[in-house]
């Protein structure tokens, strides 16, 4: 017989139904593997859940803070101080001009007399004011912007525009604390992002390591499966599904942790809000965020398992 005989191919076809049934079977048997050591699996899942919940909670905090700011913004007004000796008629004209502006929702005019009256009622200096001949207070217009929330930059432009009117001495908004507040929420947001990246890595490593231990514990089994003709894909599959379950369950645990934390915070927050005549409520996770988190942790789980399998399957040849 010639050594150069044509090599005969192998039959590697598998019926689609068989293929599907096989995947379904492995999906649930890998779930069974988790269940075989409930305590160990639960501890791992809790650690993973906390790791996912941390950045997620921070993200939720930022969202709520921003919502809080937006609610306060809509109530905020811009104070426009008019020049001294501006007469009543000029003020009326200015108010009418401003009212045609799209960006302005409402204008309240406070005349020097009204201002003095308020001042008298609220100030201990009332008697001192009596001594003044002239009313030193200017006309003030309180302007309520139409937008509930105006970015700091746009607000600056708006103030400049108001000051361009010849009658206007000064336009003021309590911009500083808004800017500071937004600065702080930006920092928290960035911190949440950094934390999310770091803890994703941690999730990847934890799942990878868990699967690695699992693989080493099943070394004999893997070698015997290879011995009877099990492909790498066949051996890999249950571990990948195990990674899938770790990812899924840990993200669900994270959701539960977030939910419980929000529940614990709900009452104190409502109480605080009521002190400020606000009906502010904690808002939960958006459905897209929820699905995104579950999806990414499932992917992390599969990826972690994949890495572990690739590092260790090669050196497990039967002999």
């Amino acid at each position, binding site marked *: 017989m010639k050594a150069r005989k044509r090599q005969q191919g192998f039959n590697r076809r598998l019926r689609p139904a068989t293929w599907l049934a096989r995947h379904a079977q492995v999906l649930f048997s890998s779930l069974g593997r988790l269940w075989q050591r409930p305590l160990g699996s639960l501890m791992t899942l809790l650690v993973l859940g906390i790791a996912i919940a941390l950045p997620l909670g921070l993200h939720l905090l930022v969202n709520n803070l921003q919502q809080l700011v937006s609610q306060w913004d809509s109530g905020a007004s811009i104070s426009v101080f008019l020049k001294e000796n501006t007469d009543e008629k000029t003020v009326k004209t200015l108010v009418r001009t401003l009212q045609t502006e799209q960006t302005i929702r409402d204008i309240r005019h406070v005349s020097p007399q009204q201002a003095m009256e308020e001042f008298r009622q609220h100030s201990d200096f009332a008697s001192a004011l009596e001594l003044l001949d002239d009313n030193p207070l200017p006309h003030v217009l309180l302007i309520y912007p139409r937008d509930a929330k105006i970015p700091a930059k746009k607000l600056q432009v708006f103030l400049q525009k108001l000051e361009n009117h010849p009658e206007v001495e000064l336009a003021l908004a309590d911009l500083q604390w808004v800017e500071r507040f937004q600065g702080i929420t930006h920092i928290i947001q960035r911190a949440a992002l950094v934390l999310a990246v770091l803890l994703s890595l941690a999730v990847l490593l934890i799942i990878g390591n868990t699967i690695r231990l699992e693989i080493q514990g099943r070394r004999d089994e893997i070698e015997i499966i290879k011995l*009877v003709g099990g492909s790498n894909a066949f051996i890999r599959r249950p571990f990948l599904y195990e990674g899938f379950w770790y990812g899924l369950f840990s993200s669900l645990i994270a959701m539960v942790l977030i939910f419980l934390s929000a529940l614990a915070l709900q009452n104190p927050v409502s109480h605080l809000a009521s002190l400020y005549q606000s009906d502010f409520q904690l808002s939960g996770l958006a459905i897209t965020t929820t699905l995104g988190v579950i999806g990414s942790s499932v992917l992390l789980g599969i990826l972690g398992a994949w890495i572990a399998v690739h590092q260790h399957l090669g050196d497990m040849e039967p002999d």
Partner: protein
Amino acid sequence: MIRFDNVSKSYPGSSGGLREVSLHILPGEMVFLTGHSGAGKSTLLKLVGLLERSSRGQVWVNKHNLTRLKPADVPLLRREVGMIFQDHRLLVDRTVFDNVALPLVVAGLGHQEIRRRVQAALDKVSLLKKARVLPVTLSGGEQQRVGIARAIVSKPPVVLADEPTGNLDPELSHEIMQLFQEFNQVGVTLLIATHDLALVESMQKRILTLEQGRLLRDSRSSEST
């Protein structure tokens, strides 16, 4: 069909292995492999089952050139070669049934088919009643028969056995040989390594004798010349 063309196998840091072995086993043959300890019997079987690769020369099994086999095809070749070991290599946490079913599961057979074939294989080795027990509860001879059932369940054209009777008493050894002979009668090619010379001689089959990695004697070619 098994064919070796000037096959050498050396292990790093060891003088043992195989040296320039050429042989040809036809389909349906039953062949014994003998020799002293360390002669290279296990090494030769491992080359056939692709547990090791040859250092030089070409190995052919079932018309596949193993020297040129792609890594992805290794599992497919192993499905065509049933292997039996002295230490059985069973999964300790699976039932006898699941152990025997393993080659069919990895090959992707359906449930019904697996059931039917496993029962047939267990029936052949007279272990049908023990299908639901764990291997540890079985005697050495019974465990060996589980290993044999696993090796033949997928009806591979070639079956290799490395010291299949190593730990068994003469009577059990004879039963096992009887089984092998039955497989051989339905066309399975068998290659059995053993140093139980009395057993080998009683079978009156072709005998390959190895010594220090070389093929010392082939009973068939010595008969014909």
